């Protein structure tokens, strides 16, 4: 199994590296004059009168701090009157330095706040990780329960309801929940925003948990509701298919109830196609968190990414992309492990 997982990981790591490098190089290809001017005015609020030389020196200092000095990539091409001149820079370039630091876990500083990117991301993950993992778990468990219920004679309108929800993008569902259940005019059941502000660290644990639940119910519900239809429909179809197989007929002939046939015999086989969907569940939920966190004003990963994108804060953006790619790797490993556990035939191949 170890070899199997290692092989999968080795295949996906180059893609991750390539996409992160791509975003990094694109972000460095932009002109940075606005940004430097901003940083300069932030730095020198006190002293108004700057000579040209001082200004130049200050700019250079800021560039050095943000890692913007030197050529961007290993080679460059400059235009002159005689034509294009190709130049080789060796390892003294921004990309090489960034990559070397990134491998060691240092992703640079945020352009906006000047904090280390890893600290900013870690702070945001504290909110996003519980939200997305609990959404993933809840969606998986609920989909199994609902699909079993549907197979054992649940109401058919449930499926049509799920289809209807599936027609809406996540942000509409979240907005609908917000406007229905957190609205002082209709049903003020849940707060519309404010997570992470009230919780005092010294409160007793049950108070902390209940406040957390109070604030995270709506975001969680919208994430789960959006992911649920595809999972349930897939699992339901797979279960129906398996229940038509001969071994299910045998099990029924043995005298097992419909529920027992479904849970003991069909479920395991039906789970295989759904596990493929689970691979994408965690990254999809993190992406979904972008929307949900913006709507419910949660200080998490997704909102951080959206704000970084809007304000051109590239170190944070590149770090976020890297983190998402790692999450996908984790999702792949989890899915492969699950495949391994459900289907002995895969164990034989590996």
């Amino acid at each position, binding site marked *: 199994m170890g070899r199997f997982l290692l092989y999968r990981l080795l295949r*996906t790591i180059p*893609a*991750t590296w*390539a*996409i992160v490098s791509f*975003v990094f190089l*694109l*972000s460095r*290809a*932009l002109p940075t004059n606005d940004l430097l001017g901003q940083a300069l005015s932030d730095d020198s609020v006190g002293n108004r009168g700057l000579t040209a030389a001082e200004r130049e020196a200050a700019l250079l200092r800021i560039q050095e701090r943000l890692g913007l000095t030197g050529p961007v990539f290993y080679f460059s*091409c400059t*235009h002159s009157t005689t*034509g*294009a001149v190709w130049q080789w820079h060796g390892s003294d370039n921004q990309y090489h330095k960034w990559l070397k630091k990134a491998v060691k876990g240092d992703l640079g500083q945020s352009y906006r706040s000047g904090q280390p990117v890893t600290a900013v991301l870690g702070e945001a993950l504290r909110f996003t990780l519980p939200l997305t993992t609990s959404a993933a778990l809840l969606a998986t468990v609920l989909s199994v329960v609902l699909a079993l219920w549907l197979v054992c004679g649940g109401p058919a309108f449930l499926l049509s309801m799920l289809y*209807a929800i599936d*027609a*809406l*993008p*996540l*942000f*509409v569902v979240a*907005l*609908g929940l*917000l*406007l229905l259940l*957190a*609205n*002082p*005019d209709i049903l003020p059941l849940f707060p*519309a925003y404010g997570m992470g502000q009230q919780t005092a660290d010294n409160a007793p644990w049950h108070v902390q948990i209940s406040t957390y639940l109070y604030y995270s119910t709506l975001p969680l519900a919208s994430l789960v509701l959006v992911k649920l239809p595809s999972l349930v429909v897939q699992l339901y179809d797979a279960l129906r298919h398996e229940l038509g197989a001969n071994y299910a007929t045998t099990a029924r002939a043995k005298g097992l109830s419909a529920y027992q046939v479904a849970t003991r015999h069909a479920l395991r086989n039906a789970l295989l196609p759904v596990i493929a969907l689970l691979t994408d569940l965690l*990254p*999809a939920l*993190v*992406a*979904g968190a*972008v*929307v949900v966190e*913006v*709507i419910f004003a949660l200080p998490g990963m997704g909102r951080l*990414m*959206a704000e*970084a*994108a*809007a304000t*051109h804060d*590239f170190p944070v*953006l*590149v770090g*976020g*992309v890297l983190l*998402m*790619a790692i999450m*996908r790797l984790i999702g792949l490993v989890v899915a492969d492990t699950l495949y391994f556990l459900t289907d002995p035939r895969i164990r034989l191949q590996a």
Partner: protein
Amino acid sequence: MRPRKKGAAQHAIAVGWLVLIVSAALLAPWLPLPFPADSVDLNHIAQPPFLPPSVPDTSRHWLGTDGFGRDVLTALVYGARTALLVSLPAALFATVVGTFLGSAAGFWGNSGLRISIVYWLMGGLLLVGAVEIVSTAPSAWWLLLLSLAAAVIIGKSLMRVPMLRRSWPFPTDRLVLGAASLLSSVPRLVLILALAAVQDASLPGIFLLLTLTHWPEPAHLVRAELLRVRTLPYIESARAIGLSGGQILWRHALPNAWRTARTAFPLSLSALIGLETTLSFLGVGLPPEIPSWGRTLAAARLDPTAWWLALFPALALAATTLALRQLTTNKISA
């Protein structure tokens, strides 16, 4: 008999709604809308729908206004125009690109397409030349065409040399799948967010972004279909009568696989419409002055009591998605 009738009615409703949306989008500038696009009516800010105007002798805001005094009905009509203008070309282009790459990957696999050493050489030279031309004189694109023609002619004549006629396989499948997995290594919304931050918000930009990130889906579908088709007897007989790989793919295999891409097209379109509205809801990708269903929904986020700002665009979006899905299910069952 009965279920078919029911399906037909649903199909008619779906087609009717789509025709309505498309015609509203196309005819938006000539529709008798009382308010021009993006105009601000400061006398009626956040007015609920169906109310008569508070100032006499002005037109009625049938679906209300948002917090800036923009008419919701106008925003919906022009939002449909934006959705059509962005999502439809992107979906079309992504489907065409995906079909092209997916069919090549499925048909030739990793070893099916063999290119002789001459063309590898010529291709490499051409690539270097293209980079050189683009970096020195981007306006001299005609030089590129000229060198392409020259490469073909020289290649043809070099083919006479027996040693150069040997061929190496071109790893089509690996390249296409690699590019697709590269794009899917990060969730699509995050990727678009990151790429949209790099370039300025514009209509062509968002069209390119959506195309670039969406083509793997039709490509995977068509590739799977061609893996099935290429083992069929009629392809074998086409090979037997001596047709070239390109001819078989283009004339015989692709028409079979094109049906899959066509069936999936409405789903691609609805996914892209959802993505476009999400992006404009987040304020990414499209300039803020372009009306969109997502922008109207974003106004609802600011004003929770204005239920009409959320309800009407959400209904339009849901109806469009469901109608497109209905088209797909009809095609599959037909």
